[in-house]
């Protein structure tokens, strides 16, 4: 009888302690802050995952500059990953920064790649919000459609600004090849990036 009483007391105490711990986790520490002010602390894991994300995008930018001939648009794949996992805002920021560097690294007008990446990234972020994004078929389709859309937008901007990419013909062949590259690489890269950043859909 006594043993059972002790057990229930310990259980109660443990439950109370667990509750307190959960409260501490949920609520930021506000002891030294004035009333009414709430400090929003950024967890270490978020900072780490964002630092990893920065390194991934940087690595993809450099890798893209190493490949010869018609190459996959790795930066766009990174933007699509951000759109699927973090939403349109993150995709737009990633697309803007990486796209600007891509423009600096290319003979295109400054801002052209960035514009395509921002638009495609944010549209993908808005549209893919309601889907189960870890399905491979979905990743294939998204990468293919988004790449074609981005490449055509890039060509359109080049046509408007009279800054045509080289070659009078064969543009569609290049668009198709880049799209196929991206479609094949998308599931592999997405899986790797998911593992590295720890971002869940």
């Amino acid at each position, binding site marked *: 009888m006594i043993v059972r009483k002790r057990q229930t007391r310990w259980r109660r105490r443990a439950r109370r302690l667990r509750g307190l711990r959960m409260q501490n986790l949920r609520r930021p520490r506000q002891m030294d802050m004035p009333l009414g002010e709430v400090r929003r602390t950024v967890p270490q894991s978020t900072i780490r995952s964002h630092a990893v994300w920065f390194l991934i995008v940087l690595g993809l930018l450099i890798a893209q*500059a190493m490949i010869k001939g018609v190459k996959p648009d790795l930066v766009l794949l990174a933007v699509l990953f951000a759109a699927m996992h973090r939403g*349109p805002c993150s995709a737009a920021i990633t697309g803007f920064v990486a796209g600007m560097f891509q423009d*600096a*690294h290319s*003979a295109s*007008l400054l*801002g052209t790649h960035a514009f395509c990446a921002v638009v495609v990234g944010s549209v993908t972020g808005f549209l893919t919000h309601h889907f189960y994004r870890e399905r491979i078929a979905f990743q294939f389709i998204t990468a293919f459609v988004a790449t074609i859309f981005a490449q055509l937008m890039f060509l359109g901007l080049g046509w408007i600004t009279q800054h045509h990419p080289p070659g009078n013909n064969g543009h569609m062949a290049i668009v198709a090849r880049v799209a196929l590259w991206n479609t094949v690489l998308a599931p592999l890269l997405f899986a790797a990036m998911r593992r590295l950043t720890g971002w869940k859909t």
Partner: protein
Amino acid sequence: MRSQARPSREVIVPVALALSCLVTITLSYRHENSAGHAAGLMLTPLSPLERATSSVSRHTTDWIHGLISLGRFPRESRELRQEIANLGAEVERSRQLEREVAELRELLGFTERFQSRRSLSRALGAEVIGRDSSSWYRTVLIDKGHAHGTRVDSPVLTHEGLVGRVTRTSRSSSQVMLILDEQSGVGALVERSRAVGVVRGMGKGLCEMAYLSPRADIKVDDSIVSSGLGGVYPKGLRIGKITSVTRDGYMQKATVEPWVDFSRLEKVLVLEQKRRNEEIGE
């Protein structure tokens, strides 16, 4: 009371960034020079990383190639020794010819202004550390910038022939537009018949020589060199050889295969701008 729906951050940020991109495009379209400087600044932090990556990948490739070609070493070494012996004889003969030419020139009272300037000019050695990040343009990134003396429009070549010209420079790296790019036009002439035209890129590793007169004497396998017209490239740089000739309306067109193997471009020479300006001034 009517409630006002405020647009969320997820709408404002993408729209604001898209608008800033459009502004940047407009500015870089109107002020190409300033945009080039801005792009150069953005290239600066990336170039050390690219140099390191390029060096690592080159060493790895060399190591793998070395392993593969281990069995061919004795035969190759014999061939190379033979080749060195032949080249030595060749060098001796060309030195003799050079002396003879100099003597003949002196006899003719020929002023060697261009020749002397060529010897004074500095050709800067550079290494290719990256390629265009999109599939649309034919540019490469080299590891020498304006701190080393490269300027926009400096001609770039290898021992095989003309590579292109510098289009953007940062402190420690420069972007080179290859002659394969359609936007790069090189004033050129057929070495044999002196027919003049313009060489521009076609993509797929080939160039075309356009604006050739319908009566111009051109044949397959004719060698093409730069004409020096336009002021960017000096005269006499080897470009490529003609592989086919077609008639395009009243003009003739020729397909040119460059001497330079652009898929294996590693080391290049950048000619200093100073010499070119002097020549134009002359």
